[in-house]
């Protein structure tokens, strides 16, 4: 078993492994179903930050919610350190929930407007079978851990700023000492300076606590900054998985290339190669995806085989995984510099 982590101190094997995950939704009215996630597999190592990026509707949140057991899992396996999360039910499921915690995008919606910050952070603790003796002290240390002070504990959410609310959410997610933290667009709604603060916080938490993070964003810059490895999703499938560094400097999938090209960069024109957008049109409907390679309708390298055959996610030289028939032939450009 060749894990990505070479460090022998860690127990062997990934913390989380997602195998051929499918998430389906029944469309209201019509009798059709929508495959929001269609056969996605990846692993997250212990202490690793795994980034997931993709355009709106590509199924990022559905993956996250499936891991949280909040979305219906149609097929596939989700294994957390040997436990099949997807097969847990009832009490058993509730017991295991604490092991994976989530920070949601909408920081205010995920806090009950009627609860004080203290109550919100203490709530997961109360829900445990054996609540910790010093819950109060724990709450106080958590709030400081996320960079707020105890004076915030008795406030109601609506008196806090977006960044402060997101800090409270993080504190609450940490209360149960999860092994995996899922951040679904946790910084997307925030101003850049606030976003920077939260990113710094997540980084320091990850480094100090050694927890694994699934970090979802549509902002390639942020994901690339934070993650060890990044998965690129397109229409319910993974197009490419690679280390952040490799992905940005040497993309192997045309979609990744297009994303990099479209990323607006705050650099003076002198330091930036002007490139026309490499991609036209928008993501097709997930209810009725293209045959074969799902990206083929927008791909500038499209060939006949793309419509006929679905490219598997396969290893390529250089360590990454790519779902493109022609990954070896194409010469793709990385970040503009």
């Amino acid at each position, binding site marked *: 078993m060749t894990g990505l982590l070479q460090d022998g101190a860690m127990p062997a094997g990934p913390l989380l492994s997602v195998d051929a995950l499918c998430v389906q939704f029944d469309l209201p009215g019509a009798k059709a179903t929508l495959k929001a996630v269609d056969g996605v597999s990846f692993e997250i190592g212990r202490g690793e930050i795994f980034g997931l990026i993709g355009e709106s509707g590509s199924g990022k949140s559905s993956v996250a919610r499936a891991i949280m057991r909040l979305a219906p899992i149609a097929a596939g396996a989700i294994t957390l350190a040997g436990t099949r999360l997807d097969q847990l039910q009832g009490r058993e499921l509730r017991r295991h929930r604490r092991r994976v915690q989530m920070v949601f995008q909408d920081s205010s919606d995920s806090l009950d407007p009627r609860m004080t910050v203290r109550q919100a952070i203490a709530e997961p603790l109360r829900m445990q079978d054996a609540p910790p003796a010093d819950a109060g002290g724990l709450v106080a240390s958590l709030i400081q851990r996320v960079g707020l002070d105890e004076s915030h504990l008795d406030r109601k959410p609506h008196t806090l700023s*977006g960044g402060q609310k997101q800090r409270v959410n993080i504190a609450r997610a940490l209360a149960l000492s999860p092994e995996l933290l899922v951040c679904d667009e946790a910084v997307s709604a925030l*101003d850049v300076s606030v976003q920077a603060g939260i990113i710094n916080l997540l980084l320091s938490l990850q480094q100090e606590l050694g927890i694994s993070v699934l970090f979802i964003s549509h902002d390639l810059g942020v994901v690339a900054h934070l993650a060890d490895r990044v998965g690129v999703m397109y229409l319910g499938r993974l197009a490419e998985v690679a280390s952040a560094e490799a992905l940005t400097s040497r993309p192997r999938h045309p979609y990744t290339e297009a994303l990099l090209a479209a990323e607006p960069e705050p650099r003076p024109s002198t330091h930036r190669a002007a490139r026309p957008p490499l991609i036209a049109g928008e993501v097709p409907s997930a209810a009725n995806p293209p045959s074969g390679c799902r990206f083929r309708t927008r791909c500038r390298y499209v060939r006949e085989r793309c419509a006929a055959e679905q490219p598997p996610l396969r290893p390529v030289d250089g360590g990454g995984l790519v779902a493109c028939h022609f990954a070896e032939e194409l010469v793709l450009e990385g970040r503009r510099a």
Partner: protein
Amino acid sequence: MSGGGVLRNWLLSDGRSRLAASFLLAVAILAIAAPLVARYSPTAQNAMPFTGISWDHWLGTDDLGRDVWARLVYGARASLLAAFIAVGIAVGIGVPIGLVAGFRGGWVDAVLMRIVDTFLSFPGIILAIAITAVLGSGLMNAMVAVGIVFSPSIARLMRGQVLVTRERGYVEAAVSFGSPSWWIVVRHIVPNAIQPVVIQATFMLGLAVLAEASLSFVGLGVQYPNPSFGVMLRSAAQFTSLNPGGVYPPGLAIALLVLAFNALGDSLRDVLSPATSTRRRIGRRANRRPAPNPEPNGASPRDN
């Protein structure tokens, strides 16, 4: 400040709800202290009918020579009690049904909502008449009927609220750290879903007062010889030729009571829903206090 501005301030300011609340409080006190303030028994026929206003009879007497003021005061008792009973029953039936339907969903929801729809498909007063016919006459029975009639709309409202609340992020968060369903319902869903129900219930208090009047008018819900506003209005309405003014004391009492409950409901809604409240308050403040007066340590929506 323009004349319009003054009028607007008077009507739209919190004064309106304060006025409503004070009025209701006054009515409640009068009702409780009825024996002290009434001066006569509400059923004593101790004068000629329709004496008109006098020192002995502040609001005159009714068709049986009873003191209208005394009957009004005791009637407030009956009408307020009736309103609260009806709304209590409506909430008591409607909220659990809506909660169960909204939270459980599926066939439970389908069955409950079909029943609710059925009850909603009868014109309310007709259903109330039918239920009163079964339960027998009398104020309490009539208000039980009104409560039953009101309950489906509470159930629908509650269900809708539960459906919305169930999808909120904090509920999902609670699920994600393993909270049991009962906790989520009790701690998150009910407190956050109940607000519109409370507002609606306030409006319903007014509607119940009106329903009491209507049922009394068709002769149901009356407990002779005890007064309620509806009973008084009905009997006064029988003598509009002889005593045209007779319909005003009970009619105005009903209208004012309903008005007060509605105003209270309105202001409750304003206070509870931020969208309208700020708008309204801004408009008011703009007129009243042009100078900036920042409140110290106001909470900010920004930071870092």
